[in-house]
């Protein structure tokens, strides 16, 4: 080791100590902490993040209005529902000393690639919508414990509910299964397939590399299979193209998808082809849970007239952090401990806590949603 190198190393070490001390002091004397909301805010799947952000925004605005000792600042971290983008965004969030918790990620692929950074930084994640099973599977290399948590049930629960809802009203129909090769889409279809024997039979299966412009070869396969039901595992923008291609080519069967399809943008993207599309999501619409006065307040603060999907779970996720901060936890480690050990009441009235793998204990039941006259309506609890 030469002298120059040794001197450089010593300088770097001193700098690290000084900055570390400054950061610690800042954390101790925090009058404001930052929570990052991570999800897609631009890109093809932006609606998912755009829909759920107001839930967190509303909860934090209400809290800050009480003039607390420690205020919360929300920042958006846009990882576009894309694992590759998330792998670049997450280290930046982890390196931002002001951030003490993450609400997110929205998508499972994002979560998969963000977890390593947050694990290394000891930064808690509470996701309002990432449902892939492997994120909380202790045997999976993608397991996010102890930092990853989600307030929604996972696809091991959503899959059977989707199989049931998609085939509702038909007697053991033939079902065609398609996924978009994403961690979420492929995982959901695995869960649907496992549950399907109770509700129907698999007529065929395909995995589609998205984005795809021309879906006609997939349509041909669906028609050749004689399937009465198509279940798609993926997100809204691609589902819209697919269902349009199906209807334009004369397919009259049922089209169903999971929570990735269930965004407020979907009916507009698919046009008249969206009519009758069935969707599931482990979420209860916010406007069905709150009073008219609260809804009015929500509309005023967020500027959103009709709360979209996962507003409820984003609101619950934010309130978990708010409660932890109220209790005096303002550092990453204390907040992580608080999230791991706490017990809260969701806006739906049920208790929320997390098991050792980060899965929710309690949480909303999976709901069935339907597109009617160009609007998504909450059909029933499944």
């Amino acid at each position, binding site marked *: 080791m030469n002298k120059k190198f040794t001197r450089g190393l010593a300088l770097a070490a001193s700098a690290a100590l000084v900055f570390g001390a400054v950061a610690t002091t800042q954390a101790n004397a925090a009058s404001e902490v930052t929570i990052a909301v991570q999800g897609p805010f631009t*890109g093809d799947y932006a609606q998912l993040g755009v829909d759920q952000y107001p839930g967190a925004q509303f909860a934090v605005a209400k809290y800050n209005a009480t003039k607390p000792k420690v205020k919360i600042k929300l920042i958006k971290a846009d990882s576009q529902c894309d694992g590759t983008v998330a792998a670049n965004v997450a280290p930046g969030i982890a390196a931002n000393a002001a951030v003490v918790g993450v609400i997110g990620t929205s998508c499972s692929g994002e979560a998969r690639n963000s977890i390593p950074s947050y694990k290394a930084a000891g930064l808690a994640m509470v996701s309002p919508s990432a449902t892939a099973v492997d994120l909380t599977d202790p045997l999976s290399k993608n397991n996010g414990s102890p930092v990853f948590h989600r307030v929604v049930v996972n696809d091991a629960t959503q899959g059977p509910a989707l199989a049931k809802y998609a085939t509702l009203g038909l007697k053991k129909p033939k079902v065609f299964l398609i996924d978009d090769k994403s961690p979420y889409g492929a995982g959901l279809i695995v869960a649907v397939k496992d549950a399907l024997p109770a509700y129907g039979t698999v007529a*065929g299966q395909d995995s589609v590399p998205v984005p795809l412009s021309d879906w006609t070869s997939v349509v041909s396969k669906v028609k050749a299979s004689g399937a009465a039901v198509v279940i798609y595992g993926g997100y809204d923008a691609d589902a819209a193209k697919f269902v349009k291609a199906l209807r334009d080519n004369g397919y009259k069967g049922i089209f169903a998808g999971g929570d990735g399809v269930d965004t407020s943008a979907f009916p507009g993207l698919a*046009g008249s082809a969206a009519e009758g599309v069935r969707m599931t999501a482990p979420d209860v619409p916010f406007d069905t849970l709150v009073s008219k006065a609260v809804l009015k307040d929500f509309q005023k603060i967020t500027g959103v007239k009709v709360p979209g999907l996962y507003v409820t779970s984003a609101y619950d996720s934010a309130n978990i952090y708010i409660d932890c901060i109220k209790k005096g936890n303002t550092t990453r480690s204390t907040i992580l401990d608080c999230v791991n050990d706490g017990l809260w009441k969701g806006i739906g009235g049920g208790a929320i806590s997390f098991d050792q793998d980060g899965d929710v204990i309690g949480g909303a039941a999976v709901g069935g949603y339907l597109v009617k006259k160009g609007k998504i309506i909450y059909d029933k609890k499944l």
Partner: protein
Amino acid sequence: MNFSVLTSEFWALALQGTALGLIYSLIALGYTMVYGVLRLINFANSEIFMVGTFSTMLIEIVVFKRAIDLPALSGGKLIFVLLLTLMGSMLVCALLAMLVELVAYRRLRARGTNRLASLISAIGTSIFLSESVRLLSGSRSHSAPRVLDKWSFGEVAGANFRIDTMMTIVAAIVIFIVLEIFVTKSHLGKAIRAVSMSEENSKLMGINLNRVITMTFAIGGLTTGAAAFFYTTTYENTVFNVGFNLGIAAFTSAVLGGIGNLRGAFYGGLSLGLLEQFASAILGSQWKSVTVFLVLVLVLLIKPSGIFGEAVQQTRT
């Protein structure tokens, strides 16, 4: 492997593959025309296509006040709107192609820089156009309104002869025939061919090189604009990066058929469209690109100049 789909849906796949392939062919013309004259891959052509799709959508929404929730048009109004939108898209793409030539290539050519500089300039222009539209469009997919109802002439052997599919096929064939006649018979076409054969000799013959090159870009832009119109009318959506996948497919078509010649672009696109459909049906959608590029590599190994590269050298643009 699933051969049962192939047997039961063969004609449906063939028809859809033909329509998609001809859209590739029209975009491929943008590459092949420029390559024929300049020996340059105009990578910005994929983004010219993308701008064409947005132009089509915007003309329908802004000029003709169409919206997602409005019903499709019919009768004379439909024909009027379709024709004007097609012409608008072609015009925008032609003008953009001419502008790209002027800004990105002409000065480099005048200074006698090597082709590598032009190639980098082409890639830079492509990124500039794509990122500009990304910023302007909020980087998400946009649905185009339904102008043309997707009614069918009928179904034969499982193949659905839908109006938009048939319109794309017929119009693309007409455009190719017109272009072939133009290149072989017209004064400008002959000049383009002369420049393609020898730049130096063309100059000696009094051909205005810059004018010929600009017009070549314009013709490539016109066919790419037509492709953008048929794409948007059929699939009714676009996004800032739509040109990437379609551009690669079109470029592959041009290389497969033999880059630099018109018929090569036509048959290359057609082959690719059919190959994609059949590969998706038999092997599964995830194997589509693998199959296509495997075939491309094999063709180039056996015939490096592409299927028609050498055989119809004389009709090269």
